[in-house]
């Protein structure tokens, strides 16, 4: 009999298991893979994601093999905003959500899952959690409507059965726990992006590049093994045509969004792996908890890849859920009370506003005139650029940036005009052109 069984040993699962084990609870964590192991991911950690690793004492291990930067370039229709997430906003984030603001770092990083997940699994084991890899969960044991354990199979075909006071579903977008319990999806947002990416050696960048033009976007981000992740994405309704010629359209999209990055990749880059892709990105929420079970990470709330927030949110869930479970397991409060606390932090107003923000971006509509003018108005206003980046990354609440008096003030403080940017010359015609599928 364990205190907790965690299904899934990646970002949300291994972290939850580690944090619970550190509090002295008996934890079993199972995963169908053996590590190191890769999985579809933008594998990006925003500064609060890195701060979680730091709070848990794992950051050094990651930084020993992973490049990290502080400044990031966000370029929309040629309007470049360069900035970073301010420490003060990071501290406020941790204070508000977790009640303590220790361990804040301002760097971000792109970490291959084959690197990160193994570090997390080892940390869980070191903390005292029992880790079983190559172990596939085949069923949940339910008694009187209460989940009380799991049935599974090891790689050599041996059947296992284990019991615990709580089962944590940390098993991703296509969660087995959710499917087995028949959990509904809420707030479904079927409009999402398709994304294709690969890994290139041969060049290095000072900062991560996020570019957007029309309905397409690309990101070039330094990652492990002296490689760069090169990612392109667009509206999922264009995916079928894109698929007709993946390598050709991948380069075409890159050239369209940023001719400079397209040229850099073509002229200096050497592709090191095949091109990967997905459009399994529609956002949804699931119920967070029920009798004997609780969900964390993508299993409870999946969002499109376009803000690369999934791993950071998985870490957040791990800290919230483990704090809630610890309080209950230690006899501090009834489980209903601690789960309500977890739910309050995951289903409140700020979470809803950010969810809407990501889902709207994921529709990949061409930027509106007012949005582009806002980006121009931000140029030269470093404090507000930084706050915008912090808002985009879900460090600062959407409601504090997108507030009338703030937007008016940004306008008034503008140092640049739209004169230098060709997108404003014939905006209506350009916007119409952007609606055409370039891969058709």
């Amino acid at each position, binding site marked *: 009999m364990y205190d907790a069984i965690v299904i899934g040993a990646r970002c949300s699962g291994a972290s939850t298991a580690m944090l619970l084990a550190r509090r002295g609870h008996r934890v079993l964590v199972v995963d169908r893979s053996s590590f190191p192991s890769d999985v579809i991911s933008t594998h990006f950690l925003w500064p609060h994601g890195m701060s979680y690793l730091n709070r848990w004492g794992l950051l050094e291990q990651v930084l020993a093999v992973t490049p990290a930067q502080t400044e990031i370039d966000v370029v929309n229709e040629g309007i470049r905003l360069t900035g970073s997430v301010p420490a003060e906003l990071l501290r406020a984030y941790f204070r508000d959500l977790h009640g303590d603001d220790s361990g804040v770092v301002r760097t971000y990083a792109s970490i291959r899952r*084959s690197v990160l997940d193994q570090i997390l699994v080892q940390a869980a084991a070191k903390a005292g959690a029992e880790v079983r890899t190559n172990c596939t969960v085949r069923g949940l044991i339910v008694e009187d409507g209460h989940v009380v354990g799991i049935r599974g199979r090891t790689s050599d075909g041996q059947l296992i059965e284990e019991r615990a006071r709580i089962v944590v579903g940390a098993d991703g977008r296509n969660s087995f726990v959710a499917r087995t319990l028949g959990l509904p999806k809420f*707030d*479904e947002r079927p409009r999402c992006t398709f994304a294709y990416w690969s890994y290139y050696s041969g060049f290095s960048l000072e900062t991560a590049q996020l570019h957007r033009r029309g309905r397409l976007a690309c990101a070039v981000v330094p990652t492990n093994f002296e490689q760069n992740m090169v990612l392109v994405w667009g509206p999922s309704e264009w995916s079928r045509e894109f698929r007709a010629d993946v390598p050709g359209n991948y380069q075409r999209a890159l050239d369209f969004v940023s001719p400079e990055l397209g040229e850099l990749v073509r002229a200096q880059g050497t592709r090191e792996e*095949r091109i990967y892709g997905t459009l399994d990105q529609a956002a949804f929420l699931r119920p967070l908890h029920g009798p004997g079970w609780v969900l964390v990470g993508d299993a409870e709330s999946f969002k499109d890849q376009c803000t690369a927030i999934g791993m950071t949110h998985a870490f957040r869930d791990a800290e919230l859920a483990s704090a809630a479970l610890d309080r209950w397991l230690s006899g501090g409060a009834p489980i209903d009370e601690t789960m309500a606390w977890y739910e309050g932090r995951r289903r409140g*107003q700020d979470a809803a506003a950010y969810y809407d923000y990501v889902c709207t971006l994921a529709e990949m509509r061409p930027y509106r005139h*007012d949005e582009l003018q806002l980006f121009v108005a931000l140029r030269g206003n470093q404090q507000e650029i930084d706050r915008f980046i912090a808002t985009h990354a879900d460090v600062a609440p959407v409601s504090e940036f*997108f507030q*009338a008096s703030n*937007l008016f003030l940004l306008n008034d403080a503008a140092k640049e005009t739209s004169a230098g940017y060709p997108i404003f010359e014939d905006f209506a015609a350009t916007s119409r052109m952007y609606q055409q599928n370039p891969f058709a």
Partner: protein
Amino acid sequence: MTTGLDQREDGELIEIILDAARRGDVTTMARTAAEVSEMTRNWATHIPWDDFATLDGADDELAQVVADLEEMWEPAYLRKPVDPDEEYALDKNAYDFYRPAGRNLLTRTEDYYGWVLARRRTETWQYSRVLEAAPGSIAEITNDLGRRTRGINFNSQDYLSFNTHPAIRAAAERAMRDYGPHSAGSPMVLGNTRISDELERALGDLVGLEHVTLFPTGWAAGFGVVVGLVRQEDHILIDRLAHSCLQQGARAATRNVVRYEHLNVESVRQHLVDIRSRDTRNGVLVVTDGLFSVDADWPDLVSLQQVCREYDATLLVDVAHDLGSMGPGGTGVLGLQGLLGSVDIVMGAFSKTFCSNGGFVASNSPALKQYIKMFGGSHFFSNALSPVQTAVVLEAARIIRSPEGDELRGRLFAAIDALRDELTTRGLTCMGEPSPIVPLLIGNEKLARVANRLLFDRGVLAFMVEFPVTPTGSSRFRLQVQAGHRPEEAREAARIIEGAIADSRAYLSSAFGSAAK
């Protein structure tokens, strides 16, 4: 780690698998699955990649694999048809149209208008409803599609129910007879009457400040006093949530504007330290509401005034919502905090409790009064309050200070307490403190717009506020209570509102609650 430049891309492989699955060819499925990337296999944990060979063609396991793979590999939104009008209406915010494109000022408003029409067609446009009769605790209204309804009215600003008060109506009739409907000029010329002076004295008595200036609207008072006093090189510290007239006045007056965290006096102090370390020559105006109109809370004015004095800054407090409707003898938040007569500048509006358009600015300085009369453009260059308006406000001020005023405020707060209690008991979140404004937090705009549509037909009139009145993602219903509301009416309304919110959440299939964090 898998590295395979020669390996085929997953999409191509999945199409082969799908094709084979539809034919029941499990051998091809299994062979192809072996080539699918580790990334995708670990992502799609619900697909039995390793077990394809054992799937029975007759079993529905195979159909499940086809369905799951199609779901992964076809754009999800194609499976769920939506009403494009409703999607458009619910998805956008007014700020999406703040900077329209094009050089023709007439035609470039059309995008915004298209959105307004979509909101109207889907009956989610909360603005521009009209009254069919005097708005009491019950009102009869028509929406902008011409549909009529009747309901418990939390949509009107008449906190002490003066609009139907016989003495108020008699005062209006008297002024009409004595002076006619028109003031016929600026107050700087010949727009004022003898009762204008009486009104200035009555208001001065109410807030304990001797020198009062009248403005034609509350908005004009706020805007006028800020632009009248503050110059380019001066500074303004303004609460983030202060009223629009003050925010816009600040923008018009200077570029040196800091929006401080709502109610945070310590943050004001820090900004003042910062400003005074750089600038000892220019003025600083600190601006706040008394009772905040969509959050129903108020600042610690005692500390705020003290901090202002320490750094030679001037405090301006807008008491539009609280003066007359709450506090000892109707003295509002100033009276509650024992600050009558000791705040630098007080401004207010008559439109919430005093039963009329109009506003005022009060201070202890005759010089300040003369200065803003001259330089606050909205006083000098507007027609004065009409004689009827002046008489109504004067009579309202008299009742507010009388024992009858106390009794009306008692009834008002009985209704407020009933409403807040019933809403809270039902698990909803009322923001702020008990006051004539009861903000019911909703959060998500879509949820609020749909709930608003349902309420229209269920007998409650409530104003939904969203951006730009509230920040993005924190929409709410602003329920404005009147002395004429019976407590049981308020409780009935709370029950109806709860039902509409629950039904809206089900309609949108939303799991988000409304709590702030």
